């Protein structure tokens, strides 16, 4: 059974993606037998290309996707370069995990509450500085250039990339390299850019591609922060898929397939751009400059990075504020009256949705943990060495745009009579939960000193006894962190729930997105706040439980 673990895992992970991509490709070329369309044609593409907003949508997608990724990576590198080797680095390391576990949707909604024309910042400066006693008439959210969308993506991706960078510093002997460079007269931030950053980039390349793919193709953030007409390509596709006009499925599938091509090309272009950037970096290193404009430039960029982290936390805080407000008129800085009325009014619905959300997240995380542990244990028992191919396979769900394969999955589920079931939703979540659980657990699992298992075997313990009584308890902390990450990934998922749930399964996330287009901020805030709080509570529990359990075990702290 254990031997089959890698194969089962791969099939569960990639089977739906491959089937879904094909099932979307068909209708993109006019082929969808369920609707009686049996002939292959280019009509869906003609319809897509002739859509009035098509070229703007494509341009918006590319600009916001690349813009957000380039800015996030710059902020991440500047944050790490200016704090490496100092206390700030550890502070960063502690501050970021909560941001990572907060769903995109909650950050996007909170961020919109901050920057909207009637938002918190406008209130803070009105009317005394701006003279506004009514919200200004220009768009600061959903602007046609996608600037608010880029900013929202940056809040989230900077935290993600910075955490990946911090994790990678352990593998590149950062301290020693920086000390050596310091002895040669380089400032810490310059030393980081010169000798540490290239090696770290090689380590975080796949996470960077994942951030690019997400920025190019996400639907939930673009729905909340992006322009409405024309929207991004992914939103356009999602809108057509969700409409009642079945004929729209065809151009929608074409848009979804194009989205896949955009991401594929985007990652390819990014990979090619690494070559000249690397060459420029090497030439710059050869020049041996010890001081220049880089230090102030890095400090300024890092300032923006800190602003991004602060805004992300502020986005969560504003949700709490709005959920407790009763009367809060523009331009009052704080609510005039406070109340728990909105909470009381929606408690039943929030609790039910939170229950469903937690159930889906818990089950998909437990399945992911089981498969991951089975693969890792199989790898150790059979002493298999895992190549780079396995790593790429794990990243496929994070690179392939959700919109590009979920429609195909949906039609398949409908045909099997399986759509709208909890099982289907959980499986769809598993596709995204599993990679994160695996990636976060593999390193600690492989790093456990193999001599503990050998000692136990020499004492007569069987492999399964060693697994359950030695390895698992020793890895409890890592297991907890992995589970919390898996849980938060599941809570954050929007499109997978939407497409496989068939309207019968709703979570806090789908509800928050639906509500976000409505008017009452207090109600939106209640749902979005709980959506943000749920993974945070689980994350805190995952840290606290092993600490309590092992309070008398210094060797495991």
């Amino acid at each position, binding site marked *: 059974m254990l031997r089959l673990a890698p194969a089962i895992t791969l099939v569960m992970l990639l089977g739906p993606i491959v089937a879904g991509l094909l099932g979307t490709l068909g209708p993109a070329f006019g082929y969808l037998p369920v609707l009686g369309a049996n002939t292959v044609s280019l009509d869906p593409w003609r319809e897509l290309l002739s859509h009035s907003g098509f070229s703007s949508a494509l341009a918006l997608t590319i600009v916001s996707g690349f813009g957000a990724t380039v800015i996030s990576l710059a902020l991440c590198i500047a944050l790490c370069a200016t704090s490496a080797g100092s206390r700030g680095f550890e502070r960063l390391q502690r501050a970021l995990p909560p941001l990572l576990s907060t769903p995109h949707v909650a950050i996007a909604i909170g961020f919109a509450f901050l920057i909207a024309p009637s938002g918190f910042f406008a209130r803070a400066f009105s009317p005394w500085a701006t003279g506004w006693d009514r919200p200004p008439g220009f768009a600061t959210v959903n602007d046609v250039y996608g600037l608010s969308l880029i900013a929202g993506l940056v809040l989230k991706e900077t935290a993600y990339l910075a955490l990946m960078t911090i994790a990678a510093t352990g593998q590149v002997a950062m301290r020693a390299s920086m000390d050596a460079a310091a002895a040669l007269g380089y400032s810490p931030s310059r030393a980081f850019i010169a000798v540490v950053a290239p090696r770290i980039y090689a380590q975080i390349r796949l996470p960077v591609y994942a951030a690019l793919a997400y920025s190019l193709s996400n639907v939930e953030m673009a729905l909340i922060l992006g322009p409405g007409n024309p929207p991004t390509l992914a939103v356009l596709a999602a809108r057509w898929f969700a409409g009642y006009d079945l004929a729209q499925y065809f151009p929608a599938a074409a848009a979804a397939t194009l989205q896949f091509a955009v991401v594929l090309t985007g990652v390819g272009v990014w990979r090619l751009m690494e070559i000249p950037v690397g060459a420029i970096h090497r030439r710059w290193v050869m020049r041996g400059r010890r001081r220049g404009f880089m230090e102030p430039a890095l400090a300024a960029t890092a300032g923006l990075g800190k602003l991004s982290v602060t805004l992300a936390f502020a986005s969560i805080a504003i949700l709490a504020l709005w959920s407790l407000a009763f009367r809060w008129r523009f331009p009052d800085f704080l609510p005039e009256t406070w109340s728990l009325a909105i909470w009381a009014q929606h408690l039943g619905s929030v609790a039910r949705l939170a229950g469903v959300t937690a159930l889906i997240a818990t089950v998909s995380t437990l399945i992911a943990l089981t498969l991951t542990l089975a693969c890792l244990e199989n790898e150790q028992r059979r002493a298999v060495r895992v190549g780079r191919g396995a790593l790429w396979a794990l990243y496929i769900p994070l690179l392939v745009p959700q919109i590009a394969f979920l429609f195909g999955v949906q039609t398949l589920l409908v045909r099997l009579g399986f759509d709208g079931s909890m099982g289907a939703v959980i499986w769809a979540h598993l596709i995204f939960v599993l990679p994160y659980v695996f990636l976060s657990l593999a390193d600690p699992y492989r790093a456990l000193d193999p001599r503990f298992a050998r000692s136990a075997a*020499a004492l*007569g313990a069987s492999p399964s006894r060693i697994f359950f009584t030695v390895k698992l308890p020793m890895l409890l902390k890592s297991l907890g962190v992995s589970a919390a990450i898996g849980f938060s990934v599941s809570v954050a998922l929007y499109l997978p729930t939407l497409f496989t749930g068939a309207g019968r399964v709703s979570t806090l996330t789908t509800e928050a997105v639906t509500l976000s287009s409505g008017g009452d901020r207090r109600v939106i805030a209640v749902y979005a706040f709980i959506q943000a709080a749920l993974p945070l509570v689980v994350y805190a529990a995952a840290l606290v439980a092993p600490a309590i359990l092992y309070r*008398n075990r210094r060797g495991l702290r």
Partner: protein
Amino acid sequence: MTHDGLELRGVSIKVGDATLVDGLDLCVAPGEVVTVMGPSGSGKSSLLAFIGGFLDPAFAASGEILLDGASLAALPAQGRRIGILFQDDLLFPHLSVRGNLAFGLTQDVRGRAARLARVDEALEQAGLEGFRDRDPATLSGGQRARVALMRTLLAGPKALLLDEPFGKLDRPLRKDFREFVFEHARMRGLPTLLVTHDAEDAEAAGGRVVDLEAA
């Protein structure tokens, strides 16, 4: 003909093109301590790993290992009844001192009371009566080393492999622990194979010395 104790017949270990051990024949009688010496990389630890049953698949090993006349080839590590002490004590950090010892104690001792009695008896022999509920991480290096030995002995091994278990201890402690280990090994009549690169260890063992480089 076979002997009591641990017997190696024509044991060779190779990694890639390099031969680490070449046709080693060796008999270790019950209660005898044989020392295997050699610089690092000479295959000492690989030899112990082969005997213990957890040699990395990157190594190719051949030859026969017999324990009290029976071949070990078909047995997995947990079925060989060969106790091993490593340079690190490798006490399980999630278990108490008593938990570690009970983990090691052979399953032939049944019943909670009987098992705890055996564990406590072992603690007494190690002079660690007051430490049974302690976190192993709070013990001194010498105390941890003694717990590790007792854990190994409680499993009821028929032979003992020592992979430089004295290497990390300070001088006076090292001498005490060495005597403690040899005394217990002889008392129980265990054929013991000690791997070390320290001549003093070999001298203290007092038995035959096999030099791997010369082999």
